[in-house]
């Protein structure tokens, strides 16, 4: 089966063309994702500049330990993903399945920790429209911060979920010997997507949790 797929899809002239096309395709897709999140970051940045005090106060109420742990988890998962791609380049099927499975596990851990974090936020009355309570000044703007916080992290979480699905799928495909050193494009492409999800988190984390914590 590996040989059959090492051949190229019919619209391409050869495997080389398919690889080039797939690579260019995923990079363009990543560009669209950056623009997608860029709008969220822009809206957040503009609102933050208008209400620096309220946003700083609100930011201090976020759960830094859990989010920090999540950062470590996601960074590690990028590492395991990269190792999975590396293993695929060498045709080490069991290693590929192993690293991809570990990545899936770490991704799930990220989401689980996020769920815990959301629950804690809910218990502390920090979820807008769900019994939000804030006793300090500029409560409306603090609520606005949390609205954006949940929106941005939820959109990011959705991308993590989709990534987990993709990685799980290619892990299964790898287990069924679908890839070879000549053809592992899906792993390559998914790896790039996963790295982007990680990079986006590396922007989300500081702007939501770290700014104004001295």
């Amino acid at each position, binding site marked *: 089966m590996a040989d059959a797929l090492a051949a190229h899809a019919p619209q391409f002239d050869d495997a080389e063309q398919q690889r080039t096309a797939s690579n260019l395709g995923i990079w363009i897709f990543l560009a669209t994702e950056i623009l997608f999140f860029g709008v969220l970051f822009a809206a957040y940045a503009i609102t933050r500049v*208008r*209400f620096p*005090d309220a946003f700083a106060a609100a930011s201090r109420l976020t759960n830094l330990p859990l989010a920090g742990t999540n950062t470590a988890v996601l960074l590690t998962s990028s590492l395991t993903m990269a190792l999975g791609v590396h293993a695929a380049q060498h045709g080490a099927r069991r290693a590929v399945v192993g690293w991809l499975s570990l990545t899936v596990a770490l991704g799930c851990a990220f989401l689980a920790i996020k769920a815990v974090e959301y629950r804690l936020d809910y218990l502390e009355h920090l979820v807008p429209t769900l019994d939000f309570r804030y006793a300090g*000044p*500029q409560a409306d703007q603090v609520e606005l911060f949390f609205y954006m916080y949940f929106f941005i992290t939820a959109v990011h979480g959705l991308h993590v979920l989709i990534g987990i699905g993709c990685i799980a799928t290619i892990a299964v495909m790898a287990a069924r010997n679908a890839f070879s050193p000549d053809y592992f494009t899906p792993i390559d492409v998914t790896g790039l997507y996963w790295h982007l999800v990680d990079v986006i988190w590396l922007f989300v984390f500081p702007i939501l949790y770290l700014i104004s914590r001295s």
Partner: protein
Amino acid sequence: MDSLPFFPVSASTTAGQVDNLYFAWLALSGVVALAVALLLIWFAVRYRRGSAANRIVADAAKSEKRMRRIEIVWTVVPVVLFLAMFVWSARVYYVNVTVPRGALPIYIVAKQWMWHAEHPAGEREINELHVPLGRPVELLMTSQDVIHSLSIPGFRIKQDVLPGRYTTLWFTANRAGEYHLFCTQFCGASHSHMVGRVVVMEAAAFEGWLSAHANLPTMAARGAQRYRQLGCDGCHGAQASVHAPKLEGLFGRSVELRDGRSVLADERFIRDAVLLPNREVPAGYDASMPSFRGQIGEEELLEIIEYLKSLGNATQQVMP
């Protein structure tokens, strides 16, 4: 003539400048459009298949060079023309947004679906605006709900009217009469009913109209009353025990803030101070002023602004 109008009446001092721009563009684009059309037609006829026109290109290299030169010319010429038009139109625009000193202020509150005008001397109008001939008038406008836009085609002016902030428009009417006033930002079901008229009156007639309609105290007087009603002088008054800024002479002054910035104490500043007090805390004070959001309407806020203007040197605004 009225059944097929071609051109709007021109009733303000700046309308002529806008019209000149328009005519210039009409001329320029007319020439270009005509040139393109004529060339297309001429080439199409002359070089139609089977015609005897000469199609031989004698010297390919020379032709290539000539083509290159033509391309450059018809790139550079438009750029130069456009830059000239840009500068001219920007200057007209700057006149449009620079409110002259001593303009008579009129306050506009737009709401679905009517225009509410308040004269400082106390007159109130709905969907009508009586203004004097030959005197600059400044409209300070806000919306109570959605974005509207006040347009007076006869004066060639227009400005969006936003909720949550003030925008301004100014004009000097130079022709007595009545002119259309439209809302030109879609604002809901009765958007097209949100129309009115501007009535430009000679100075004497305008004074007459003012006195005939002055059945309310001035805006500043009403503002003073509101100021006391809301308890503002509890903190800002001379007898106050709380450390709060004194407001006499504040309006129009530059205020230094706690974070080091300097802002102008204009209408926007007052409005934000009342509704979002802790965004711009003056230096030497703390962020303890309560917000009056929900307790004060747009018209009342404007009355308080007029009152504060009356307390000090109300300098005229030059809009950025």
